[in-house]
Structures are given as C-alpha cells and as structure tokens.
C-alpha cells in the first residue's frame, strides 16, 4: 500500500514526458540535429596549407559569414533564382488553372466516365519526376522525337524546345503534366464536400451551372486553392529533377540552372559542402519567408472576409 502510494505521484508526473520522449528524440535526431549541423557547416570552411598534399595539410576552420557573403555576392545564384521565378510564373498559374478547371468539370452533373477521366489526369503524378523528365526530354530532341517527325512531314516549322524561351515552356510542361493531377484531386475532394443543399438553394434561385461554379464552388474551395498554391510555390523554389535530367541533352541548361542545382553541384561536383550548406540555408530561409508570408496574407484576407 505505502509503496504504491509513494510511487503514484511520481508516475503521474513522469508519464507525459515518457510519452513525449520518442517523438522528441526522433525530432531531435532526424530534424533538429541535421539542420543544426548544416547551419554549423555553413559557418565553416577548409583551409589548406602549402601544396595540400601532405598529411594534415587540410583543416576545417571557422569561416564566419564568408560562405554567406560569397553566396549572396554570386550572380549565378541570383540568375538561378530569376530563372526559377520565370519558370514558376508559367508553372503555378497554368498548373492550378488546369487543376481547377478539370476539378470543376469532373464535379459537374453532366460528366461521363468520371472515374476513368479522374484516373487518367491523375496518373502522370504517379510517374517519378526523373522518368517523366527523361520521357519528355526524348520527345523534345528533334532527331528522335515523333512530334518533330510529324511536323517535318507536314512542312510546319520545328521550334528548338531546348533553348532560350521555349526551354522554359518545355520545363514547365513537364511540371504541369506531372503536377496537375495531384492538385486536381485536392480541389476535387473539397468540391465533393460542399453540402448538396447549397446547390439546391442556388438552383432554386435560378443560378446557371457557370454561375454555380463561379459564385459558389470556387469561393467555397478557396482554402484548397490556397493550400495547392502553397505547395506549388515550395515545389517551384525547389525545382531540380527536370532541369537536371534535361541538362545532358542540351547546352542551354547549365549545372547551376536553379539554386538547388547550384547547391548540388557545389556539394557533390566541387566537393565544397560548406558553401553548399550556406546556400541551402539561404534557400530554406527564402522558402520559409515566401511560403509562410503567402499563408499569412491568405489567412488575413479570409479573416477579413469572415469579419465582413
């Protein structure tokens, strides 16, 4: 009796911590620690003495903000960011526009073969990004592409899709092809959860299907649109698969085409993990600022609307 009474308060007090422990431990081990280590590395650099050939000629030393100033002073980093911006300006509106359009069409009453169409649009998302980029890359190469063969036979002009402006379209096309299905499903799911009485009320008021779509459906799925937009921004900032896969096929995609490619080539091409860590940290901060900035703005707007 006495023993159980004395143990009880201890057990109750300790229990929450005990339950928290696994999650905290995993979070610390696999999230906080690697990120902390990345940030730590970003303040370090290698210092070589002499020819650097003897043992111990290479030491890791404190670099302060050197890696950051170097990354921020590197035009290639900005140019990469600009290229990604241009790419994002094509991908995000087109992908979300198509996703919304397809979702609305699937949700309309007169649709036929809905399950099949839904699957067909979604299927490209199931194809790994690298495979998709490879597949499209082959289709973009004039000498092996069936498209160019047809264009040639019809005597139509054959644009070079792997150079200049069309390169952005070519890259965006891969992302749109792969991402539309996913976003469509997100929007479609939230369309299905709109209560039927809302539609009935609209019908009684004499709303046309187009009016229902514009006045009821789109405003009611706004949270999903915000969510998909949020995901798309992050995905765009981190574009890597498509340009990396197309790079060997053309001179127009450099090894530092997008900021993330620069991180990769610095770490694994040049072996400078310190600069790569600094650049990765900068990208992470930019991603956080942009995406959460957008979320806050979206939230504030919806709150204002709710207040009205």
């Amino acid at each position: 009796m006495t023993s159980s009474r004395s143990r009880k308060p201890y057990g109750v007090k300790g229990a929450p911590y005990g339950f928290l422990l696994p999650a905290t431990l995993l979070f610390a081990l696999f999230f906080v620690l690697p990120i902390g280590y990345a940030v730590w590395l970003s303040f370090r650099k290698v210092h070589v003495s002499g020819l650097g050939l003897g043992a111990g000629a290479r030491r890791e030393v404190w670099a302060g903000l050197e890696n950051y100033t170097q990354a921020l002073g590197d035009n290639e980093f900005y140019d990469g960011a600009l290229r990604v911006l241009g790419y994002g300006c094509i991908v995000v509106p087109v992908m979300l526009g198509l996703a919304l359009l397809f979702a609305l069409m699937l949700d309309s009453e007169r649709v036929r073969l809905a399950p099949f169409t839904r699957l067909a649009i979604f299927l490209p998302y199931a194809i790994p990004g690298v495979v998709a980029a490879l597949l499209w890359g082959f289709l973009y190469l004039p000498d092996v592409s069936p498209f160019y063969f047809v264009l040639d036979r019809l005597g139509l002009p054959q644009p070079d899709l792997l150079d200049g402006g069309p390169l952005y379209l070519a890259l965006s096309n891969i992302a749109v092809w792969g991402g539309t299905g996913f976003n469509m499903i997100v929007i479609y799911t939230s369309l299905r959860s709109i209560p039927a009485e809302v539609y009935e009320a609209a019908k009684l008021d004499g709303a046309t299907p187009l009016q229902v779509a514009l006045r009821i459906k789109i405003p009611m799925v706004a949270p999903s649109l915000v969510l998909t937009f949020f995901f798309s921004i992050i995905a765009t900032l981190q574009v890597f698969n498509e340009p990396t896969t197309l790079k060997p096929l053309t001179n127009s995609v450099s090894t530092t085409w997008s900021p993330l490619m620069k991180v990769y080539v610095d770490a694994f091409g040049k072996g400078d993990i310190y600069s790569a860590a600094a650049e990765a940290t900068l990208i992470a901060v930019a991603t956080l600022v942009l995406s959460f900035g957008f979320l806050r703005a979206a939230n504030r707007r919806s709150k204002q609307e709710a207040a009205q």
Partner: protein
Amino acid sequence: MPHTKRRRLVTTVVAVSLGATALAACGSSDDSKADSGPVNLTFWSWAPGMDKVVDLWNRGQGKKDQITVTFKKQASGDTLVTKILTAHKAKSGPDLVQAEYQALPTLVSNGAVADIAKEIGDARSDFADGVWQQVTLGTDAVYAVPQDIGPMMFYYRADLFKKYGLTVPTTWDEFAGTARALKKKAPDVDLTTFSANDSGLFAGLAQQAGAKWWTTSGDKWKVAIDDAATQKVARFWGGLVKEGAIDNQPMYTPAWNKALDTGKQIAWVSAVWAPGTLTTAAPDTKGKWAMAPLPQWSASENVTGSWGGSSTAVTTDSKHQAAAAEFAAWLNTDGDALNALAKESGIYPAATNAQTSGAFTSPPEYFSNQADFYTEAAKIAKTTAPSAWGPNVNVAYTSFNDAFGAAAKNKSDFVTALRTMQDATVADMKKQGFEVSR
C-alpha cells in the same frame, strides 16, 4: 507535387555527412590487429564485371594469402570521389577504391589515399613512365596502381569517308579542311561535334597540345588552364563551331547516338575505349568504322592525349594497407587478372605488356574489319603526353561544362570561356587556402 522528393535536399546534403559521422563510431569494425591471420578487404569500384575478377582473386591468390576482397559496385566519376571523401571524413572508408587519375590529387590532398610505395614492390616496371607519373604526382610517394588508360584516337566512318572523297586527317589543319570539305559536299552531315558535356575530352586535347594545367614550384601551385597551348585548342574548336563546320550539340544523347548510327556525324575524336561506346550508340554501323591516330598540331609531331583511365588506390582508413596494396598490384599486373579485367570489364590495361597479349591479340568485335586495332592502339599509347592534374580538377571540370556549354550554344569566343574556367579554378584554390601563382 512532382518534386516533393527533393524537398529535403537542404537537409540531405548535410544528412549525408552527418550520417557518415554517426557511422564513424561503428564503421570499419573489422579487426585492429596487424596483418596476420585472415584479412577482409572492401573494394569500391564502378567497373562492370569486377565481381568476377575479384572472385578470381578470392579463389586463387587471395585464398592462399588469406585475404578476402569484397567488391561493392559504385557510381563512376565525381560522385564516387565525393563518396570516398565523405566516408573518409567518417573514417569508415573502404580499403580499396577505384580512382580516375585526375581525381588522385584531390584524394591525396584530402588525406584519403595512402602512400603504398613500400608495399607494392616492383610493380613500377610494368608501366610506362607517363602513366606511372600520374600515380606518384611527381613525388617519391606512390598513391595508386594504374589500372586502365585512355589514349586518344581518331575514329571515322571508313565507308562514308570514301563516299564523300575525304582523306583521313593527320594534322588538325587537315581536320578543319576535312570538316569544311564535307560541309560543302553534304550540308546536312557533320564531321563531328564539339561537346561540352565531357571535360575529359577537352583536357585530353589540351594535353596533346602540350598544356600543363597544374604544376608546382616549391610550396605554390601554378594554374595554367588558359596557357598558350590550351588557347590554341580552344580557338581551333571555337572557330569550327562558329563557322558551322562542325556541330555544337552534346554527345551521349539519343540524338547523338542516332547521328552516329545514321551517318549524320561521320567521325569522333575519342579514346581507346570507343568501341564499347560505339557498340551501344551506333549498333547498325558495326564494321564500318576505322581508327587512326589523333591528328597532330604539326606534321612532324606524334603525340596523343588521354581521356579517361583509372587506378586502384589504398585508403588511409584501411587497417590492412599492405594486404590491400598486394591486391591492387595483383589486379593490375597479374596476367590472369588483366585478362579477366579485359574480358569482364572491357578495360584497356595500363600495364604495357598486357596491351598486346591475351584479349588484345585480336581486334574488338565492333572493329573486326581492322585486324591490327590493338597493335596500333599500343603504338599510340606509347605517344601519350604527360598529364598534370591538380587538387581541384572537379571545379575546373564543372566550370568547363557551364562556360563551354554556353560558348558552344552561342557560338561565341571559346578563349573567353577558357578564361572563365581558369578564374573559377584559381578562385576556388585561393578560397581553400592554397598558394597559387600564375
């Protein structure tokens, strides 16, 4: 999102090194005793069929000496260098690694590969001086045993050269003339392409012209990527691209394969390993190609560059460096091992004697029309110019890809691109703290 998988790259970059650090504690737990009793070695290599060659050792010599080697297949090139360096940081590297010659200074500079001068005995006598110099870096140390070499040659479609009335160029001037003559006769056909996606090709061409990109004097490195010889090479190829005498698209693409296979490109400046590449790239033109020595800068010269080639190095992390060196020497000098390497991995041996014996007494299947293929190749291999690699070849190569890729695309000045490459390389070395003179 199609790119969600990449979302974690930020942390992955670091997680790799972190994971490696964590592994340090438990890595390489073999045994810390000296070289007595059975020894287990790990060998990282990308050569196809290497497992069979390693088997040969484990069943023969290795069994006798109680040294068992485990082969672990790796990705080739720079990826493996990064992996070796990361493993070395964690002190959990393998015992043996395959390393390209140009990567050796990087590995040595990072303290990842060991000096095995004492352990390899008389292996030196099996190799040509120029090859051996690449594994000593001009010092008294020996950092690896040469495995394969890639002397450069000129490959051309013999049947199409005849059809267009072209002669095989022996100088680069003639090469340019051939390219122009072909353009006149068949505007749709290119002699070859200048590809910016494999820096090794350009490095080899510069080497042939007499360039020495990295040299040392005292405690200083001298970087001369934009020296007169390399400028000459850059100007030559840039000129051909600019006037449209040759193509400017990268090689190793499906389009390039098709161009070779359909006779849209009728020559390729390549190395001794080309038959393997052509077999997969242009299967339909088997037996129609021929090999000749690389064109020269002046008719009186007879030198070539090298493109590719690798060595077997022992790591500083290995607890059994003597045993590892014994295996490295066996792998690259023993007759049976070299035969197996030729047969299973398709490599062209660095060991001089092996170049004309065993598997190399008959031509490669793709070149069955050229009976003396390997006799010629061995002759050409002897004319290989000395190479001069430095501690950040990877940086120079990456810079080459971007600068020359853009220059080839825009048909702009190649010498400017060369200067970009030089500047990037020097800047990187200075950042690391190397003393650099020009």
